[in-house]
């Protein structure tokens, strides 16, 4: 970035490339403290807890056993993990199919329209997702708004059960995470240089080819970031799947939550949590590798 003005002020550029000084560390301190306190320390606590055993009413003994991990690899729990990953993959896929065209359209619109549209995307985030999920319950339930409309319009003869199905759960997940797909892609599309696309057409590329070989590669950082922002939280999400899916089938977030409460087995819950962390690291590593290629 600083390369263009280097001839003019190469000394200033050199200053920026020096190792961080005292002031920089001072500015960074809040962030570092936050990271250590709320990311690193809790992760270490989680790993330590996962090596312990819980006895009696709730006392945890640190026995440094691996038996929680051995148990976590049993099919009972792996199956729940597979179900959750399935939910997350489907959610990410649908969000991408809906989110990419939306983000592209917003990014290519005129400035005033663009600002209005992007605000509209963000407005739902001003309300707690729980309240919005409860709103979906009143819409989708058998005595709800949607069924009442469909019946009165004579599209269906009697109310159908939409709520408390895997479909409703995925709907809730897509609804909640869609903005996190649109926003990063929008940022990439906005930076996209129209001249490059025009050049592709001038050189005889079909619209499909221009899309797949120019637009997609250039917006890829946004797509990858969006996919990650949707995939990772939707694996562990259990509020929406419980409220809209009726808690059936169970998801890994729900199972971990229960280990810390009614299952009375915090160390095992921590072991499952560590497995989930590994999946997150794996998906991060995959996207980094992809970017490197």
């Amino acid at each position, binding site marked *: 970035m600083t390369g263009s003005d280097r001839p003019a002020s190469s000394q200033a550029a050199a200053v920026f490339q020096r190792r961080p000084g005292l002031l920089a560390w001072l500015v960074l301190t809040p962030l570092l403290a936050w990271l250590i306190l709320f990311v690193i320390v809790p992760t270490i606590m989680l790993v330590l807890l996962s090596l312990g055993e819980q006895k009696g*009413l709730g006392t945890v003994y640190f026995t440094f056993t691996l038996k929680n991990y051995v148990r976590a690899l049993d099919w009972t729990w792996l199956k729940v993990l597979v179900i959750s990953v399935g939910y997350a993959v489907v959610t990410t896929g649908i969000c991408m199919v809906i989110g990419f065209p939306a983000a592209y359209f917003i990014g290519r619109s005129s400035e005033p329209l663009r600002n209005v549209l992007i605000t509209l995307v963000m407005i739902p985030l001003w309300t707690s997702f729980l309240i919005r999920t409860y709103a979906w319950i009143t819409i989708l339930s*058998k005595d709800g708004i949607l069924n009442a409309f469909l019946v009165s319009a004579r599209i269906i003869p009697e109310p159908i059960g939409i709520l408390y199905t895997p479909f409703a759960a995925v709907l809730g997940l897509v609804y909640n995470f869609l903005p996190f797909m649109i926003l990063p892609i929008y940022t990439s599309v906005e930076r996209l240089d129209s001249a490059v696309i025009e050049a592709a057409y001038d050189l005889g590329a079909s619209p499909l080819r221009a899309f797949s070989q120019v637009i997609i590669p250039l917006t890829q950082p946004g797509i990858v970031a969006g996919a990650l922002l949707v995939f990772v939280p939707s694996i562990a999400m259990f509020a929406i799947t419980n409220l809209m899916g009726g808690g*059936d089938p*169970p998801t890994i977030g729900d199972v971990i939550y*229960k280990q810390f409460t009614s*299952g009375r087995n915090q160390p095992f819950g921590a072991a499952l949590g560590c497995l989930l962390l590994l999946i997150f690291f794996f998906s991060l590593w995959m996207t980094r590798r992809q970017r490197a290629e």
Partner: protein
Amino acid sequence: MKEIARRVVLPFFAVLAFFGCEKTPAPPGATPPASPSPAAASPASPAASRSGESTSDAEKALHIFCWSEYIPQQIVDAFSADTGIKVSMETYSSNEEMLAKLFAGGGNYDIIQPSEYVIEGLIKESLLTPIDHASIPNMKNLAPEFTNMSFDPGNKYSVPYMAGSVGIIVNTEVVQDDIKSYNDVFQEKFAKNIVVLDDAREIVSWGLESLGIPVNEVSDENLAKVKPLLEKWLPLVKVFDSDSPKTALLNGDVALGVVWAGEGAILLNEDEKFKWIVPAEGGHLFVDSLAIPKTAKHVKNAELFINYVLRPDVSAKISEAFPYLNPNLAARELLTPAQRNNPASFPTADQLANMQTFKDIGEQATKIDELVTSLKAQ
């Protein structure tokens, strides 16, 4: 799920509680002057609670850790107005959540509200402060069948707050069959029309009961016996919800279910089409009590509060807000006939005699959780 809303709100209250615990040097609350208070003479009059000041702690604060949707805020406010004691209230949505916080040492709670099997465990691990009966004269209002229960003989450590049961609720507009037992609920024809509590121990206990096995005999062998039955039952369930199972019933998404009696009582009040059935197998009775943890700093204030909620007029107000089985006989007399005759709130003496209560089952809880999870994911 309300409980998640609470998880978000909880840290906020934790911070409040932190600031609530002012830097005042904690008084040695454990050994209060046990002066024979005149308050004991006329506990029901408001004047008494004012004279009760003599038996409160030097620091006028009280930290309550209770179930959500169980102690109405207006009761707490009235207590504060009466006694000048500043009350902070934190809530939990499962016994284990409460235990986890208690063991983590946070909060400095003066009152907790565990269920019977947890009281049993807490007494075993000597984590409760014995209760001074002289300062809780209103205990005389409690029904004899709820005092001196097996989990705390002589009520040395706990005072019953509310009790309740688990039973069957049916929307008679949809289901005309005569439902009598758990087996009648879990039938093929009601597939995907059922809501049950999202609670592994509850679900397993229904299976055990219908096989005639006592609910506390959760040996590996008995769990193996229950498994084939639950394998048939659980796929028929549409919604697992412990927090508000009434929602799915009210919205018409399911037609019958096995739910807390408190939820059932609300449904009965809401619409005549709902019918409450105490399962033929007996059912499960739970008793939630007030207790004072060993680490409490305001023991006298806690005892004042316990005595206050046992006042008939106060207890009747609690029943009005949360229609559970009120063990307070004097308060029951103040209820309206409709409240008193709600079959979900107040089972008959015969039904009550047939109900079983949970005992602490230790590490078997883990196996029960695994069994139910694997069947839900099948």
